């Protein structure tokens, strides 16, 4: 019984609590590599605390959709964080759903965010929303196919089962199709999380604004929720990546010592991928909007190849 309560709380703490830290870490490293001192690694927390204590200014033209959106986005990503294995192979809401549900819960969050961006009636929001839909439409096939390649390797679409299978049979991990799926998923994650070759997370004023353009009218608590949801999304996506492709060290039960080791390794792995994101952001310029389909098209081709090579390896 206690395990039924501990695990969800643990996962929520990790995902909700540490997601701003990941963002802070990325910003800090990036600043350092550009030989700036950069803000404190805890800056995202300060921002959130500040924003949560403020009242909100809401656009007159907007409706209840606008006010509901931050909650819907936040909660849908909270649900995802309970379906994804984080520290242990066991997952709190295992019977609730699989990767398909996760993909469509992301779609739910996105759907409402785009609606809210249209709700304010400003051209910025509309532009951001339209581009977000374009990028996600291009990213979704690649994401689904790469996850399918993994699902076919592990014979299940359930993330907990996938991680379990890959953990126990490490020969499966030495698999070219997983490598291809990994590459494809990496590209997709960069696009979905709105990082640099696709979107610039630091400003809404660049002409290619996507995610930040949609958040333009949010303020106070709403902005805090939306920002928090976006950093949680990044962490959840990285967690999926890490626990599918590098599952070593993840606890297979709820033993305390196992969880501690799992947590330490988890921090290292996520830190490593955050660092990779920094490197990517440092070494690439933002793509032109209409080059993005090319990038995502490449990811798509990689994921198709992942599945084809799966047929051959079998």
């Amino acid at each position, binding site marked *: 019984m206690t395990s039924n309560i501990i695990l969800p709380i643990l996962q929520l703490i990790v995902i909700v609590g540490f997601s701003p830290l990941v963002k802070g870490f990325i910003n800090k490293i990036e600043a350092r590599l550009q030989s700036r001192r950069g803000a404190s690694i805890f800056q995202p927390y300060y921002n959130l605390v500040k924003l949560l204590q403020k009242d909100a200014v809401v656009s007159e033209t907007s409706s209840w959709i606008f006010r509901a959106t931050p909650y819907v986005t936040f909660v849908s990503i909270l649900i995802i964080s309970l379906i994804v294995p984080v520290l242990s192979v066991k997952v709190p809401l295992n019977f609730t759903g699989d990767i398909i549900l996760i993909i469509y819960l992301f779609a739910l969050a996105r*759907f409402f965010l785009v609606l809210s961006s249209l709700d*304010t009636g400003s051209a910025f929001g509309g532009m951001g929303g339209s581009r977000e839909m374009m990028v996600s*439409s291009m990213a979704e096939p690649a994401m689904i196919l790469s996850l399918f390649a993994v699902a*076919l390797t592990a014979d299940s*679409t359930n993330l907990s089962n996938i991680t379990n299978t890959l953990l126990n049979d490490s020969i499966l991990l030495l698999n070219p199709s997983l490598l291809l799926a990994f590459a494809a998923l990496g590209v997709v994650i960069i696009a979905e999380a709105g990082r640099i070759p696709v979107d610039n997370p630091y400003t809404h004023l660049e002409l290619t604004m996507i995610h930040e353009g949609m958040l333009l009218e949010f303020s*106070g608590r709403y902005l805090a929720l939306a920002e928090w949801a976006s950093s949680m999304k990044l962490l959840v996506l990285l967690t999926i990546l890490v626990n599918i492709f590098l599952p070593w060290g993840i606890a297979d039960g709820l033993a305390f010592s196992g969880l501690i080791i799992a947590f330490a390794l988890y921090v290292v792995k996520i830190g490593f991928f955050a660092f990779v994101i920094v490197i990517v952001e440092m070494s690439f310029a933002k793509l032109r909007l209409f080059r993005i389909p090319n990038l995502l098209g490449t990811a798509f081709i990689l994921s198709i190849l992942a599945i084809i090579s799966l047929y051959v390896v079998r």
Partner: protein
Amino acid sequence: MAEHLFVISVLLYATGALLALCFFKWQKAGNFISLVFAAIASCFSITTAVILLSNGATVRLNFSLYHAIIKYNFLLDPVSSYFILAISSISFVAAIYSIGYTRLYINKRDTRFLGFLYNLFLVSMLLVVTANNALVFMIVWELMTIVSFFLVIYEHENPANMKAGFIYIIMAHIGSALLAVAFFIMFAHVGTWDFGFDDFRKVGGRMPEVYKNVVFFLVIIGFGIKAGIFPLHLWLPMAHPAAPTNVSMVMSGVMIKTAIYGFIRFYFEFLSPCPPWWGVVILIIGATSALLGILYALVEKDIKTLLAYSSIENNGLIIICIGLSMIFKSYNLIALSSLAMIAGLYHLVNHAVFKSLLFGCAGNVYYATHTKNIDDLGGLIKRMQITAPLFLVGVLSISAIPPLNGFVSEWFVFQSLLNGFTMPSVIIKIITIICGAVVALTGALVATCFVKAFGISFLAMPRTEHAKHAKEVPVVMYVSMGLLAVLCVFMGLFPAKIMMTVNHVNTHVLGIDIVNSLTSYDWLQMKIVRTNFTQLSPKSAFVFGLILLGITFGALTLIRPGFARKFYETWTCGRSPEPRLEYTATAFTRPFKTVFANLYRPQREVSMVYTVPKFFVKSISYVSEVSPIFEKYFYGPVSQFVLDISNKVRWVHTGSIHIYLTYIFITLIILIIFVGK
């Protein structure tokens, strides 16, 4: 018991139709009576279907009127019952909805006639899915086509509607002709004179390979025209918007599903066993229709045309499932075959529900604003406070957003495509996976399309006077739509209950009961092949979502107890916000037009008018159009060819009576010689 109910329901429809005509002067009353009769009749047929499905029974109805040659045979097996359930549920809601919607036409048009046709239309669909005899089937199929043709041209003073109607009737008749040929080919192998479907079931599978293949293609095209598959879709996005909304709701929601019924009957009963490549053909057709349908819906501005294109897409998804099921069946993987079949049937009824809901809400919008152009709307969420959330439910369902019903069938579709991996042929494996990618892309595009449809027409500020003065519609119109919205939520949250129903159909068609490997407690699971084990419980996702929402809300209130909102105008770089600054539907899909430029061939025309000293622009007009490549490169040459042929044939028609008589004479002589030989 059930058969009596069914007969009563048919009779009630007929009475309703005739009564409508009897009210000579009181058009309003006539229309009202006919719709009430339709609603009651559909209650009867719903009960029939529920009774039959609850025990999986099969009932036969045979009438022999004095025409000896036609045996009026009807069969109510689980397949028919399932379609009856779908059709009559939608009919019930549509009938109630029509009571409100037809007020648009009161005192302007003959609404009695509308009621008459409407009842005939509903009953003809019921008869199509129950007919058990090729001749009866063709008669009711024609009845359905002709009645719907009259409904399409109901607003006949608009030349566009007439054109749509004529294209519809021509294409539908090509389809019927091909179906008739298919039936005759099968009939030729039967050897009895009663054209019964039962004979086809016995003989169809044993026909020579060549004939089977011919019938296969005839049936694809014949029913495919009705289903709106690409490139035979031409009539659909024209006719559905042209009809009054209460009709297009039924046409899009259930009439095009009769084609799926035809596919199931032919490919799983008459022609079974099928070679694998048939399934592959169907699969590819489905995938193409799904993708192209949604791509065209995406750039559409007329909300009803958009919904019509989206019907093509959804029918494509169902056809994908049917094709997949056929392939599995031909490899004798019956469990997987029924998985795909369940996916298709589930999506079929889902689509019927949410598409009717969306059409109904689009009708509400039209009723309130008298425009169908999304770019003229805006801000309706504040003016139509009940229609807006209903439309949102429909939009979320069709975009397969959990926990609504669209998601469940999408999940099934993905699971069955994923299981395509177990098929022995490599090329088919690869095709199924590519189909998976197509379905994924389609899903994402559907979301975009309906974000646009809802966001542009309901949110922000009204763009024109039409939208500014919109008022909420009469009660019946949103109450009936509310029923459908509730159904969307119910079918999304409790899929296991629906599964039980679908399973009867599946058991009947494929002879295997897999409900135990698909459901546990009240959620879904996947325990069919190998170890692919996974579960899905939309209800639990929903409940936990609510709990988490409560926690979030509580925590936020703790952090800031007196949270307040100030209202202020949107920031638009210092100007005061006005509707002209809003993003339009055209602008919203502009990136897609660029990305898919090869398909759309967008044509843009920007013309500016300057002030007299050419420094300032007085006005800019921007026209952006998508070239209809199917019309241009497929129908263009075909119709040109037909015209050329007719031109060549024209010299035969001289207009002189003597020449015509000569023709008849020559024909007679030839016949006599032929007979004499």
